[in-house]
C-alpha cells in the first residue's frame, strides 16, 4: 500500500471569471522510505502542492492520504522545510529547535529532550552557533537549522519546499551533499520540491516533472536508477544521468512546457505606399503616397 497518496487532487484560487485553476488531476503515490523529487517551473504551483501535502491547505477536489488516513490539517508527522526558512527571529538556534521538540515530545524528561535537540544541532554542524539568533546566521546556516528542526520532530515524512533555491550555488552544493548524507543515515520518506533538475537527480529515487501552470499536473515519472552514494563530480559524466536529465527537461520544455505563443492579431500595414526608387517618381512634391488615397494598390513583382 502506498505510504502517501494523492488522488485526483485539484486546487484553484478565486471565484467566477477570476478563478485560476492551479493544479489539476494530480495523482501521486509514494512508498515508505522513498525520496521523491517534484521538478517544475517557478510559479507552476509547486508550493501549493506542498501545502496540500502538509495539510496547510485543503484540495478543492480529490484526496491526500498518509497511511490511508486523509490529511485534513497540518501535523508534526509531516514536517516541512520552507524555502524562506521560517525560523522565529526572536529565538536562538537551540530555542527554535526546542520549540518544536517540546511540543512534539511533551512527555519526555527534560534531559532527554535537551539531548535530542543537541543531537540535531550537531547533525547539521551548528553546535558552535547554537545560541545565535537567525539574523546572525548565513542563509545556508539558517536553512540547516530549519532542516534540523524538521528532522528533530521525528516526522513520518519530510517535506522540502525548494529548500535550497534562495542559496548561492556553492552553499547549495554543500547542503545537497548534507541532505544526501542525512537521508542515507535514516532513509526517511522525503518529498523534495525543486526547480533544479540536477538537484533532483542527485538526491531522489524518482523524479516527477510538474507541467507549467496554470492547470499544472504531474508528467510521466522518471526513475533515477543511479547507484548511491552519488558523487556530484562523477555524476556529470554518467551517461544515465544525462539520459534522465534529457528526459525530464524534454518533458518540461515539450508537452509539459508553457503553451507556445502564436500571432493571432491581424497586422495593419502602415499608411504609406512603398516606392521603387529605380523608377521615376509618381508623386508630386516628393510626398510619399498614402495608401488611403489610392483607389487600388497594384503590387507587381519582377
Amino acid at each position, binding site marked *: 500500500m502506498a505510504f502517501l497518496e494523492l488522488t485526483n487532487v485539484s486546487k484553484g484560487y478565486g471565484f467566477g471569471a477570476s478563478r485560476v485553476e492551479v493544479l489539476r488531476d494530480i495523482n501521486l503515490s509514494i512508498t515508505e522510505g522513498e525520496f521523491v523529487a517534484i521538478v517544475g517551473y517557478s510559479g507552476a504551483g509547486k508550493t501549493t502542492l506542498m501545502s496540500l501535502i502538509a495539510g*496547510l491547505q485543503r484540495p478543492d477536489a480529490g484526496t491526500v492520504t498518509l497511511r490511508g488516513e486523509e490529511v485534513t490539517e497540518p501535523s*508534526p508527522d509531516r514536517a516541512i522545510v520552507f524555502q524562506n526558512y521560517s525560523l*522565529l*527571529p*526572536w529565538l536562538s538556534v537551540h530555542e527554535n529547535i526546542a520549540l518544536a521538540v517540546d511540543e512534539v515530545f511533551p512527555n519526555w524528561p527534560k534531559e532527554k529532550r535537551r539531548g535530542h535537540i543537541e543531537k540535531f544541532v550537531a547533525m547539521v554542524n551548528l553546535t558552535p552557533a547554537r545560541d545565535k539568533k537567525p539574523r546572525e546566521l548565513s542563509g545556508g546556516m539558517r536553512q540547516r537549522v530549519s532542516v534540523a528542526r524538521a528532522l528533530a520532530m521525528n516526522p513520518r515524512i519530510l517535506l522540502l519546499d525548494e529548500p535550497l533555491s534562495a542559496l548561492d550555488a556553492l552553499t547549495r552544493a554543500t547542503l545537497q551533499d548534507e541532505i544526501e548524507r542525512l537521508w542515507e543515515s535514516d532513509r526517511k520518506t522525503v518529498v523534495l520540491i525543486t526547480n533544479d533538475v540536477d538537484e533532483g537527480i542527485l538526491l531522489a529515487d524518482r523524479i516527477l516533472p510538474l507541467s507549467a501552470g496554470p492547470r499544472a499536473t504531474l508528467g510521466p515519472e522518471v526513475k533515477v536508477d543511479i547507484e548511491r552514494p552519488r558523487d556530484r563530480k562523477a555524476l556529470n559524466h554518467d551517461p544515465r544521468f544525462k539520459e534522465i536529465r534529457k528526459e525530464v527537461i524534454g518533458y518540461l520544455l515539450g508537452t509539459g512546457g508553457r503553451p507556445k505563443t502564436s500571432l493571432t492579431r491581424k497586422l495593419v500595414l502602415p499608411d504609406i505606399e512603398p516606392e521603387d526608387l529605380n523608377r521615376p517618381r509618381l508623386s508630386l512634391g516628393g510626398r510619399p503616397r498614402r495608401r488611403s488615397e489610392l483607389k487600388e494598390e497594384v503590387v507587381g513583382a519582377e
Partner: protein
Amino acid sequence: MSALIQTCENVGLNWLVPFLRLAKRENPNEQFRQILLNIGVPVLAILLFLGAWSWVAGHVKVSFGTVPGPKEVWTQAGVLWDSYRAERTQEAEFYVNEAAQKKEFLAKNPGGEWHERKFSGPPTYVDQICTSLETVFAGFLIASLIAVPLGILCGLSKVFNNAMNPFIQLFKPVSPLAWLPIVMIMVSALYHPAHPMFEPSFISSAFTVALCSMWPALINTSLGVAQIDNDYLNVARVLKLGWWKKITKIVIPSALPLIFTGLRLSLGVGWMVLIAAEMLAQNPGLGKFVWDMFQNGSSDTLAQIMVAVFTIGIIGFMLDRIMMIFQRAVSFDAATIR
C-alpha cells in the same frame, strides 16, 4: 570601547558617540563635523531661542508686570527647589521632635498609648512631580492592561476587530476634558471604601489618562498581530500549538516591537493628558500646580508656570527615551527605531 559606542546608540545617546570615536582617534575630521552638527547646531538654536525669548519678555506687559525672561524662570526654579529643601528640613526636624516627645511621654507614662502624628506640610514642587509620575504610571498601567489584550484579540480575529472598530474610531478623538467629568462622577459613585488607599482625584486622573492613552497601544498591537508573517503561523500550525501557546510563543513575540511602539505613543499621550486631568480633578500634581499658580496671580506666577512647562517637557522627553530603550530591547531589528 566599541561595546560602549553600541550601548550609547542603543539608549539614544547618539550625540556622545563622536566623542567616543574621537577618543579612539577614529577619523577626527569626521568626528568634529559630527560634533558640530549634533551638538553645536542644537546649542546654537537654544541660545537663539533664549535670546529671542529675553527680548520678547522685556517688551510684553501683562497684568502682573512684564513677561518673565529666562533669567527669572531660572531664579524661580531655584526658589521652588529651595522651598523643597526647606520643607524637607522642617520635616526632619518635626520627626526628631516627635521622637523626643514620644520618649518623654513613655518615660512619664510607661505602657501608655502614643499617637503617632504625621508631618503635614503643603506639597512641594518635587512632591507634585512625584504625584504626577505616579498618576501617569497608574493610568498607563491601566491602559496597557486593557489595550494590549484587546489589541491582540483585534489582530487575531477579523470579527472581533470589526466589532471593536466603531468604538475605537468613536472614542479615540475624545478629549480628556470630556472624559474627566464622567470619570469623576463614576468614581465618586463607586469608590468609597472605609480606608481609601488612593485619593478619588488620583483615581479620576489615572482613569482619564488611561481612557485617552490606550488607543495608540490598542491600534499598534492589533496592527502588529495582524501583520505577523504567515510563515510563523504555519510553524504554529505544523507544530499544532494550542491557542494559548500560539499567543505566547508566536504572536506576542513577533508583535512585540509594534506593541512597544504603541506603548511608547500611549505614554506620550498619557503624559500630555495628565496635566489637563490634574488641573480639573485637583489631583495634587503638576497640573494642579499650574492651576494654583494661575489662580494665585502673584508676580512670580508666570515664571513658576514656565518652570512647570519646562519640567513637563523634560520629563515627557525622558519618558519617551526610556520607552525607546525598551522598544529597542525587544525588537529583533533594533537599528530601525529612532
